[in-house]
């Protein structure tokens, strides 16, 4: 498999603190790749640098053969990289319908002129977007909330809305920052299945997550960060038994320990 | 036109005196912004209250300058306390727009209540120093200006010491630098914010008291000054106290020089033109905000 996303020598310091210190990894096209590491190891910073939300101090990011290093976030999104945020971001005062429609609108061909005259192009675009939204709403199990402001949803449900929004425009790669943290455990299994299904249909994922079971079940390849450096990488099974990884996780926070317990159980 | 050195020096001294007064206002705004991330639209009205307090206190105190000034400062600090406890305390740190609208409403109320009570007629304020002045060669500066400038310098020195060496000053800087971390080490933001507002109000009261013998006192006097002070905190970098001081003194000089050689209109417009130019070149202001630095 070829690398869809290739990150090399990524460096980023916050006022002297090295959040990322020469991190390199690749995400194969069609894969689900996990990015794990203790709290504060630089996972979110890596995502922010890749997706254009943080200026990077050095390194190179290539998406499908195109250099996207340092490009503005909206251009990286248009190039086909959609991301979610660790602290959930959705439009809380808009309905689920609008949340999903906005996520797709930049990716269709309809202009405001099309909209004004309600041209065929506009109507087609809206219809396609509605269809996709309907699929995704079923996927995340929030059909009955479709017309309702997303602000009233629970935290876990909001995470799912953010996930669905990222999937709306059929991006080349979806980057998820802790997609199931705070999501109802009974739903996590369904998300797993759904992501696997989307992956089989050709979607590539890069996932940051603390839930070890989730990562183990899903990921083909796992990259481990510690204190801004890449500790190791390998298949989920190999990582699980890697001594260095276990050691890194021994200094873990209670919530992570709990996550691991859940994973082991 | 040949430039007369004495005239230029005179303008320069006037400019510094003016700049110091601007700095008193701008520093207060910056202080409040640093701690609460809000802009106090009613800040100019605190200055106006200080000037009015001076105006009423002086005759009572037999025209004695210093006791009247102290009264004015205490009065505005009290006003600051009331404003904080009554209104600002209800604001959350990220409610910038709301803070503007609330303090804008407050400013409207204060101005028009004052106008209702004391009419819009400008008042002259007379103090023990009258219009006497010092003369150095051909240069003449009134005592009220000299004392106003000296009081401002003393206030900045005091502020520096407070921010640098007291518990309260350290807490204030900590909050301005990193709110979450400050909360974690047990700093109580409410107390710090209240003290910051009171301190800023005191600086404004000082400015108002110092200005009152120099300028006419009217209910509107704060409004135009405050708009300039807003521009100054932007030029200096929001929340950056030394930046505000430098920008303020720079503006005092520029205005004074322009006023000496060009039409008065240019003098008033200078601050806004400078601000737009600065924003164009450096969107974060001349001196980028790095928390609340004190030196």
């Amino acid at each position: 498999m070829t690398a869809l996303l290739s990150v090399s020598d990524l460096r980023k310091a916050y006022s002297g603190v090295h959040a990322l210190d020469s991190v390199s990894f690749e995400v194969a096209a069609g894969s689900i790749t996990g990015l794990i590491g203790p709290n504060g190891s630089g996972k979110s910073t890596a995502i922010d640098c890749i997706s254009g939300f943080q200026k990077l101090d050095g390194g190179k990011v290539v998406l499908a053969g195109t250099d996207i290093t340092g490009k503005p976030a909206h251009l990286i999104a248009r190039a086909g990289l959609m991301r979610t945020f660790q602290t959930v971001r959705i439009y809380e005062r808009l309905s689920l319908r609008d949340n999903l429609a906005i996520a797709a609108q930049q990716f269709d061909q309809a202009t405001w002129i099309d909209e004004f005259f309600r041209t065929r192009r506009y109507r087609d675009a809206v219809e396609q977007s509605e269809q996709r939204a309907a699929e995704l709403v079923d996927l995340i199990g929030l059909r009955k909330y479709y017309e309702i402001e997303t602000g009233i949803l629970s935290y876990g449900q909001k995470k799912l809305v953010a996930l669905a929004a990222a999937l709306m425009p059929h991006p080349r790669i979806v980057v998820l920052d802790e997609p199931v943290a705070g999501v109802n455990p009974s739903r996590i299994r369904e998300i797993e299945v759904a992501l696997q299904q989307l992956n089989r249909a050709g979607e590539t994922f890069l996932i940051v997550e603390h839930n070890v079971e989730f990562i183990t079940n899903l990921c083909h390849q796992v990259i481990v960060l510690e204190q801004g450096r890449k500790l190791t990488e390998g298949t989920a099974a190999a990582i699980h038994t890697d001594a260095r990884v276990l050691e890194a996780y021994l200094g873990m926070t209670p919530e992570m320990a709990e996550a691991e317990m859940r994973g082991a159980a | 036109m040949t430039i007369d050195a004495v005239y230029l020096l005179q303008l320069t001294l006037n400019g510094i005196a003016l700049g110091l007064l601007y700095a008193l206002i701008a520093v207060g705004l910056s202080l409040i912004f640093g701690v609460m991330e809000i802009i106090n639209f009613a800040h100019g009205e605190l200055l106006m209250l200080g000037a009015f307090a001076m105006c009423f206190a002086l005759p009572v105190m037999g025209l004695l300058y210093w006791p009247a000034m102290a009264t004015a400062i205490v009065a505005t600090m009290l006003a600051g306390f009331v404003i904080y406890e009554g209104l600002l305390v209800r604001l959350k740190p990220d409610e910038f727009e709301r803070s503007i609208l609330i303090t804008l409403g407050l400013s409207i109320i204060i101005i028009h209540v004052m106008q209702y009570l004391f009419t819009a007629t400008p008042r002259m304020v007379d103090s023990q120093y009258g219009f006497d002045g010092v003369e150095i060669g051909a240069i003449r500066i009134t005592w009220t200006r000299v004392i106003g400038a000296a009081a401002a310098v003393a206030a900045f020195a005091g502020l520096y010491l407070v921010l640098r060496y007291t518990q309260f000053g350290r807490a204030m800087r900590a909050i301005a630098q990193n709110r979450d971390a400050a909360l974690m080490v047990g700093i109580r933001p409410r107390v710090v914010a209240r003290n910051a507002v009171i301190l800023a109000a005191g600086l404004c009261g000082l400015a108002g008291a110092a200005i009152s013998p120099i300028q006419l006192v009217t209910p509107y006097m704060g409004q135009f000054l405050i708009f300039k002070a807003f521009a100054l905190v932007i030029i200096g970098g929001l929340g950056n106290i030394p930046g505000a001081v430098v920008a303020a003194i720079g503006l005092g000089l520029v205005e004074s020089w322009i006023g000496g050689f060009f039409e008065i209109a240019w003098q008033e417009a200078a601050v806004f033109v400078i601000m737009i130019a600065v924003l164009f070149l450096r969107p974060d202001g001349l001196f980028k905000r790095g928390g609340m630095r004190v030196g």
Partner: protein
Amino acid sequence: MKLLLALLGALAFAALPLVTSSNYIIGVGISALIFTVAAAALNLVYGFTGLLSFAQLGFWGIGGYATTLTVMTFGGNFWLGVVYAALLNAALALVIGYPILRTNRHAFVISTLTFALLVALIARDWVTLTRGPLGIPNIPRPQAFGFAFETTPSFYWVAWAFSVATIGFLYALCSSRIGRTLIAIKQNEPLVRAQGISPMPYKLASFAIGAAITGAAGGVFAFHLRVIDPGFLDFYYMQTFLIIVIIGGAGSFWGVIAAGIALSALPEALRFSADFRMIIYGVILVAAMFVMPTGVAGWLRERKIARMRQALQ
């Protein structure tokens, strides 16, 4: 449904000169229409896009002067003047909007305030153009096809047509994808960027359209007053627009329109003392920010959401 109501309301408003012959009341009606347009423009910029812009006051003044000068100095007519006012403001908004929208939202607010003050200074000090504090009196009423809108009732139709047209345009804009995107930008700008949308062109467009409409409204208002002087840039106007938007509910299109009509009558009703009127304005502003920070429309909406939430449990 709302649209039907709005249409009926507009028609009812058109009938005002038929039910009263009082020039005073019709004059209040003209002010109400024009203020509502200016408030709706501010709502586009602040309520929808989240940009608290005090520059509206500057645009209002520039519009008033540009329209007046077109007629009085440059020999054009009223209609052209209004168009020029709109175009000039849009261009100006693009030029100043670009640098100040790149700064943070704190600096944006203050820069717009500064712009408004600068315009007021220019109006006062550029005496050769504006006649300074003397102002420009005796502005003639407009004409079209040989008909002069000389009387107050006939000028009322002009103001009515202007506001119906601009409010209709703003409604089309706000209820389109563009309007939806503006709301999205206000609510969560990083997310908008993550979804491939560049916020800048939208913000600039919103700022410029708001400026153009405010300027045009200022032009019509100057021809209602028939005199323009630096008092046209009194902060009072900005406060009025803001209070309308806040009370109506920032981001609620019809809420602000309704508040505009209702509250424009207020200054007239409270005419007893200028100071007292302003005190009441200030109290309303402060009280509204605490009691109903999202305005009447927001308050109603929150109650609806609370009901929904209950139904879901």
